[in-house]
């Protein structure tokens, strides 16, 4: 079960992920990011506080946008990951490629 919501707050978008992302629903994450980009987002905060699980299908979606984010100078920061989910990012070394912060406040501060 996965719930995805996004809202625009001031100059940034908050993408909230709740539940489990696997190969059955990672396309929904892809579609949500696509929609945010179509709305002209330059700063994206991903709220991971309710994210219980993410498999490589979901991680792959984030990875597939990294180059585009860099080219278009779009900032993305993930915050609030549960430790078990955070560890998965660390195992693959994705924490070196995507900025991950503990709280929304820290993520906002880190936004240029």
């Amino acid at each position: 079960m996965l719930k995805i919501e996004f809202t625009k707050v001031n100059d940034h978008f908050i993408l909230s992920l709740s539940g489990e992302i696997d190969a059955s629903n990672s396309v929904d994450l892809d579609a949500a990011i696509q929609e945010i980009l179509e709305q002209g987002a330059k700063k994206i905060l991903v709220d991971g506080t309710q994210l219980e699980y993410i498999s490589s299908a979901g991680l792959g979606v984030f990875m597939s946008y990294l180059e585009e984010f860099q080219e278009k100078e779009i900032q993305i920061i993930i915050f609030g990951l549960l430790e078990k989910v955070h560890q998965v990012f660390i195992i693959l070394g994705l924490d070196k490629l995507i900025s991950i912060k503990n709280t929304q406040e820290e993520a906002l501060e880190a936004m240029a």
Partner: protein
Amino acid sequence: MIDRLKLYCNTNQLAILRDFLTKTLQDTGMGDIEKHQVILAVEEVCANLMIHSHLCNPNSFISVRAVLHEEEVVFEIVDMGQGFNILEYQEPELAEVVKTKRKGGLGIMLVKKIMDRIEFETNGQKNTCRLIKILKSK
């Protein structure tokens, strides 16, 4: 203790697999983070077979057997047909994944980093992949 699950090749079955694995691992003495990782590794192999070997054909199925020993837990994943030898698969570099914008390749990387031992055997029809995790705290 031995648990078995028959899993049809539809990715909406993955949640059922996670429930099965959670129950299997509950008495292993593993910590929550380690359990989470082992569940993820087994799911990655099963999802890979469902999608790439069986093209999400809901009539095909794979069998998952979990055997809990004193010092290790063994997950045996069996499917019929064109085998996928995880040991021969050369996973891409992370930089290549980013550059080519490919969405795959990370799963097998996770499996190899999480599990302590991986075995694969096939007789040309029946393929068996074994994922073994050593129980350190038992």
